[in-house]
């Protein structure tokens, strides 16, 4: 997929662990891992909103389109 997920970069910038983010967002660490690895087929707006709120960032900081 040409959509790249930069969740690990944002987590490193905010010095936050995956487990903590998963707890804040309200998803399982397994699902967060799927999202981080780029295996996810889709992301709900509610999940994206919760991630942006937890990481204090914009959706564009997490998702990038590459040809």
């Amino acid at each position: 997929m040409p959509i790249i997920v930069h969740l690990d970069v944002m987590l490193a910038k905010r010095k936050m662990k995956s487990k903590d983010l998963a707890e804040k967002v309200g998803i399982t660490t397994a699902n967060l891992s799927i999202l981080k690895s780029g295996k996810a087929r889709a992301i709900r707006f509610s999940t994206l909103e919760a991630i942006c709120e937890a990481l204090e960032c914009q959706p564009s900081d997490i998702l990038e389109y590459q040809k």
Partner: protein
Amino acid sequence: MRPIKILKKIINIYFYLLGIGVFVDLFQWGIALFNRKQIKLPFIEENILYTSTNIEAIIPKLLGFLLALIFLYSIALLKRSANDLSEGNHFTNQVIIDFKMIGVLFIILAFGELLCKIIFRTLFDNELGLILDSSILILPVIGLFFIYLSQVFSKAREIQFENELTI
């Protein structure tokens, strides 16, 4: 009780009754062969008895058993699918493959029966005619429906997979 549970029970009962029926018929044929008795042949309309040991009596009887075993196997697949469905495993690979196989077997059964009826009625009854009875018409329709159902389940499995990977 949920409809699938009732369906599962009915299919289970039908499968065992059918199995007993095929086994009893096979046993009776064995006895008839041993005693060289006169038997009625499948696929033939007229009530003429044939000597069981004659080759012209053995071939239709064997083909009849072959078709009965194919039907029994397709009901066994249906039984397995009903078990999976009743346990909530709706879109498993096994159910999709089984539904497709049931469909193909039903179509094979219909054509096999039609072919046997045409051949043996021509040979034994000396009449060439296409007799369309309910099984010849209904079996391919049910077979095609099962193949289509398999495709629907396959599509549903893809959607379920996508849904599970939506975070």
